[in-house]
């Protein structure tokens, strides 16, 4: 073995899978080297035609879009009504609604600092906002034992800095 070292090498070993049996056609290729490979990407990610939703969240306002042809209201917003192929317009909603289904998550996708800061379990909620035709998916901050479908919930807005603008909001149980 050469004295040159490779920083990324984790291990070198001989792998002999059980299924290969005694007459292994790949016998000459059983020596394996495993290295660390790191690929990272950072994007200048445009929120495109959906941007106003996120901008208004910072103003503590909740917006969906409305199709003037069929009058369906979309939350999350859709710039194009998929039923009519009409371009929609923005419409403000009160941010109150009802929980239609949910999952109690013990494991989240740690895609940003906002999620990494949370302690499990968290509740992924699908909420029918008053005035909307579709369900909005977001986290409901509540005791899982006190949650049930049909319960009234409302949008709560963040008071502290967040990393990703979707975390400018979450749901809480309605005060009323």
């Amino acid at each position, binding site marked *: 073995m050469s004295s040159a070292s490779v920083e990324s090498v984790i291990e070198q070993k001989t792998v002999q899978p059980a299924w290969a049996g005694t007459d292994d056609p790949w016998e000459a290729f059983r020596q394996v080297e495993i290295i660390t490979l790191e690929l990272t990407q950072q994007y200048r990610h445009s929120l495109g035609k959906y941007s106003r939703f996120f901008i208004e969240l910072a103003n503590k306002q909740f917006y969906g879009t409305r199709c003037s042809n069929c009058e369906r209201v979309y939350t999350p917003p859709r710039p194009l009504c998929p039923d009519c192929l009409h371009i929609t317009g923005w419409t403000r909603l009160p941010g109150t609604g009802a929980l239609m*289904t949910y999952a109690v998550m013990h494991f989240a996708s740690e895609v940003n600092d906002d999620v990494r800061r949370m302690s499990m379990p968290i509740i992924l909620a*699908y909420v029918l906002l008053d005035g909307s035709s579709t369900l909005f998916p977001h986290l409901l901050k509540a005791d899982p034992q006190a949650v049930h479908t049909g319960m009234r919930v409302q949008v709560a807005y963040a008071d502290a800095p967040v990393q990703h603008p979707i975390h400018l909001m979450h749901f809480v149980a309605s005060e009323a």
Partner: protein
Amino acid sequence: MAERVPVVVGVGMTPFAANREDCTVRDLAVEAVLDCVRDAGLETLAAVQHGLTSYESDHFNRQMTLGAILHDTLGLNPTPNVRVEGGGATGALALRTAWAYLQSGLCDSMLVYGCETNGKRISAQTANQLFALSADVDWEMMVGGTYTAFYAAMMRAHMEKYGTQREHFAHVAVRNRRNAANNPIAQKPMDITVADVLNARPIAEPYTLLDCSLLSDGAAAMLLATREWAAQHSPRYAERPVVAFTGTGCGTDTMRLGDRYPHLTNFAGKRAAAQQAYRMAGISDPLAEIDVAELYDSYSGVEIQAVEDLGFVGEGEGGAAVVAGTFDHGGQLPVNPSGGLLGRGAPVGATGIAQAVEVVQQLWGAVNPARQVADARRGLTDTHAGIGSICVVNIFERQD
């Protein structure tokens, strides 16, 4: 056009495993294709007229343009290639694409091979993030959502509307892992009980760890051709029953569960895919007319939703039918004899092809007798992406 209905010339598989660290993704594809070539009784791939590369993720495989690389590696140059991707449905969509290429007359033989490294080359956290990229990134992924949670919310709606119980889908988790014990190339056979499933660590309630399918490394291949090509080039073709690819359907649905409101319990895209495939194959009573099926059990409850959407039982009746043993080995329509995604494993680009390999081998009567379905003449595969955003149903049948 009947003479162009594709027939299966050969099938090949690697064992599925959590960590095939003896292989790169291209090594896996090579193993499956070699297995397929030998199964077809071919010496080389020289007569094969077209290749089709099936894989989902550049992120998991750390390599783009696998179609070009694998044609090079397998000695297929300058044979034409096409790559197919459709999320979790990738492998089944690849076979459906081959059906169209062969029927159109663009080629008389097509080698379909799928591969993926979804196993332990990355942490479970990174794997979940990469899978979440196939959710609606700006809306579902950034709030912290996982596919387990999307499926769990859907299952909760099914439970609340139809009275489906955790014990019902735990039955699927137990049965499919037990079936895997009779499949020597399955990733994780387990002999567990319903109580084990219910008491396992919760991942996204109502789903526990044992309700969730596996992350796998692996590959699968299938050589499809016209009857004429098969008879001319494959010495094995005359030795076993002719199995034809007689039906294929595809349906789609919204990316996000919430946009399906008020229909949250089932897969509308799967329903559409099944109806197309049944029409093509002349099936009117699927429970009676299909003998074996490989269903997309990405989560245990998904199999319950699938048997309803495929029309085996009515909507809301899946849980009761599952615990009654209708879909167990020896039941009316055995499903997932291979072990399914829960027991055999799920390297994404290979999954739909592996499901078809199991069905075809069942029709040939060529699997381990312990999992062989007696007198199987017609089989179905059900495969989907996301939470049913792209659904594919393929049907194979013996024609002797």
